[in-house]
């Protein structure tokens, strides 16, 4: 089988023997598992993300609507507040700045609260607009961070 001087026939025989030998070689089974797992990984997200994407889209639309409505309400409220402060007061009112100044365009909320007159006195404000129980209605202007910017008190 192993000639000392090789010629074309010897080589052809050896190549044929090697071909037969190699024909018995099989791919290890774990390769198929790996390849098909890669297929599953590549195709599974497409199936899974589709409903999630739809939900995400629906959620995004809903969130956009809520934000738009809230901003509109805040804008109208701010406009009313601004107009109200621009109008001549039907009753003398004092605006107390209690925190950071309101920035240009900053969304604010106006919250009406009933506080004890003594609290206002503690702040150095005496109001005659209190009820018999000694409570005064005040408008607290709250910034979007939840911190009060100003308090409007009827005098």
């Amino acid at each position, binding site marked *: 089988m192993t000639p000392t001087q*090789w*010629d074309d026939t010897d080589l052809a025989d050896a*190549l044929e023997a090697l*071909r037969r*030998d*190699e024909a018995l*070689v099989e*791919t290890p089974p774990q390769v198929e598992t790996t*390849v098909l797992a890669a*297929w599953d990984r590549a195709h599974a997200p497409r199936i899974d993300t589709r409903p999630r994407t739809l939900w995400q889209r629906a959620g995004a639309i809903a969130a956009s609507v809520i934000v738009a409505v809230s901003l509109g309400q805040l804008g109208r409220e701010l406009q009313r507040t601004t107009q109200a402060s621009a109008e001549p007061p039907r009753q003398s009112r004092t605006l107390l700045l209690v925190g950071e100044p309101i920035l240009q365009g900053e969304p604010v909320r106006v919250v009406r609260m009933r506080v004890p007159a003594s609290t206002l006195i503690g702040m150095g404000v005496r109001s005659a607009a209190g009820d018999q129980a000694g409570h005064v209605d005040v408008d607290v202007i709250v910034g979007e961070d939840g911190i009060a910017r100003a308090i409007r008190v009827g005098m």
Partner: protein
Amino acid sequence: MPDAAIEDLGDSDLMRRAAHGDRDAFATLYRRHHARVYRFARLMTGCPNAAEDIVQEVFLVVMRDAGRYDPTRAALTSYLYGVARHQTRRRLARDRQFVGFETGASDVTEPVTEGDVTATLERRQTLQQLRRAILSLPRRYREVIVLCDLQDVSYSEASNALGCAIGTVRSRLHRARHLLTQKMGRAATSEEDHQRLTERCA
């Protein structure tokens, strides 16, 4: 589609189905062609582990680019050999050296029986020498030997896979066989000298 029916489909139909996400079609393609890709890669690299990686890479390419396969240009086997060749070149460039066959690589041969122990051992030794000789060939010669002489690929298919003319395949094959004959002759002479030296020392 039942398994029997999908098994009957041609390669181009399976590729089209795989391109549309049909897992069974892809699995059928794999089972139909993995062995030839593995053997090609194994003979080209001399390393079973590298061959496994190459098979995976080849079928990942098939998975990704199944839609781009054009059956009018080449048979799927040529396409797969082309991809395998590309992946093999990348692998060899990365490793920058050939890794020898593992000792278990020739375990698939028939067991040695009492009567033909010497002949079988000689045969195994010759095949091992031939594998080494093939691995030592320049890549362009190794490719044609592996495809045409060891994988029974036609010259036409080989030319498609290698991206060269049929005449080039023929001339490379002729040159490759000539180089192999020389290398095997030298290996045999070297082995004979070694045996003579061993006998003299004994």
